[in-house]
């Protein structure tokens, strides 16, 4: 056994440093587990579908591929964000975090900073590649923005649900987002509360800022609500 080298000055880590450290840990853990590769397989579904259509010269309705991507919105954020936050709390590894001089909101932010870009990359990447294979051209910018915004919003929903019911964070998030898909398909105004419906509306609009503002704001409100629930809940959580 050796002696420690010098007294370490006690400082409370900054929020930025905490978020950065936690994002790094989350990414390292993700890349060393199986979840990233399983999610990658799911994200390849639009590509597989488009390849099948292309090879058999079938011309399905253009919406089919986007519907697969919307389904992924219900799955991937739950797999990554919901599971990551839920397991942290349920497995009690959170005790290491809560006993440190860090803000609990920063813990949530760190995880989201690491996982949301992956969710966006997988969902938008799958959509982009699928359309490219199917039509030979890139998809519209608004459809990519719609899926990216939907990914952020559903990730915040997953974070909120996982802080409330950590044990079943992933399953309940999938359940909630499947209900969201169902509500989005309803022919009356309740569908405005659906993230997937707003993403669908946004994808079919033109690119003028005025047009796309309404669905983006709707998604931001729903996501903000769940984000606030998540932060509020995590600040009160005991280990």
């Amino acid at each position, binding site marked *: *056994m*050796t*002696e*420690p*080298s010098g*007294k*370490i*000055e*006690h*400082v*409370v*880590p900054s929020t930025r*440093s*905490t978020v950065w*450290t*936690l994002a*790094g*840990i989350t990414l*390292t*853990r993700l890349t*060393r*587990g199986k979840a990233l590769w399983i999610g990658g397989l799911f994200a390849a579904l639009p590509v597989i579908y488009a390849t099948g259509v292309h090879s058999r010269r079938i011309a399905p309705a253009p919406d089919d591929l986007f519907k697969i991507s919307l389904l992924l919105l219900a799955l991937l954020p739950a797999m990554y964000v919901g599971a990551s936050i839920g397991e942290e709390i349920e*497995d*009690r*590894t959170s*005790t*290491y*975090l*809560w*006993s*440190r*001089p*860090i*803000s609990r909101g920063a813990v949530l932010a760190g995880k989201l900073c690491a996982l949301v870009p992956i969710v966006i990359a997988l969902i938008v990447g799958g959509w982009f590649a699928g359309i490219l294979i199917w039509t030979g051209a890139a998809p519209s910018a608004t459809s990519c923005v719609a899926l990216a915004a939907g990914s952020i919003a559903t990730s915040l929903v997953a974070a909120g649900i996982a802080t409330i019911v950590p044990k079943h964070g992933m399953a309940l998030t999938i359940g909630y987002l499947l209900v969201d898909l169902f509500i989005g398909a309803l022919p009356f105004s309740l569908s405005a509360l659906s993230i997937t419906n707003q993403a669908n509306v946004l994808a079919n609009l033109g690119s003028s800022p005025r047009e796309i503002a309404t669905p983006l704001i709707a998604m931001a409100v729903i996501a903000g609500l769940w984000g606030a629930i998540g932060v509020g809940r995590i600040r009160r959580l*005991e*280990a």
Partner: protein
Amino acid sequence: MSIVVADHCSKWYGHVLGVSDVSWKLGGGIVGLLGPNGAGKSTLIKMMSGLLQPSRGSLTVYGQNPFHDPGVRRRIGYAPEHEATWDELSALELVTAMARLAGVPAGRADRAAKDALAQMGMTDAMHRRVRGFSKGMRQRTKLATAIAHDPDFLLLDEPLTGVDPRARVDIVERIKQLGAAGKTIVVSSHVLYEIEALTSDIVVIYRGQVLAEGNVYEIRTLIDRHPHRIRVECDQPHAVAAALAAEDHVARLSFERGAVVIETRDPDRCYDQVAGAVLAANVTVSALSSPDNNLSAVFEYLTGDGGRR
């Protein structure tokens, strides 16, 4: 100045009582928190480390509420009882990350983590992933996460559980060194001899309450005032009982299947007489044990309720 002040502090988990109306002050040094499983040791430690809030009363560390004040938590090093860690990381990555989250600057975190792991005898394994570690190696890694940021106050929840004898000696020695260096350390255990190896200052906690506080030898004296049980498992329990029945130190004799349980006020004399009786009557003994080594039995004596409360 007291480092920890608990004032009528209680904690419930729904209907389950964790800690009940504890009023206690911690001055410094190494203090052993002794109690059987479920006594409330971990609850008290979690409240001191800022993981739990009291349901009633208050608990402060360095004059602040550790649940709400990050400034206090930066001075605390906590090693939890459970084994769960981020298994995908190597020991060095884990301890470095924990040091950074405890406020060690990025440029010094790696060095601090290596030092902490070296102190715990983990240098050779520091690049291996935690997933493949034995229980003892996990304990050492957990302790390294607790000390890497050089805290003033260490909370170690059952740090010797599952550790092999050699590692136990190393860890005990290291904890003593930290205490000698001026750190305040609270170590919990349900094993009296583990605590005795670390410190003579103990707090006995049982059923959520602080039962006794002071020098471990005073607690031992208190324990020794009460009858001590000796269980002799043999082929002729009645013959052993007959040989001892008339002795003045024997408070009670009872029989279990294939065994006699002797309650005595003089254990040393009793052991000698049991040996004599066994030899005289040619009794075959299959086991000789003292149920009082079980800490719960000792605490039942101390509370005087025989565990019926």
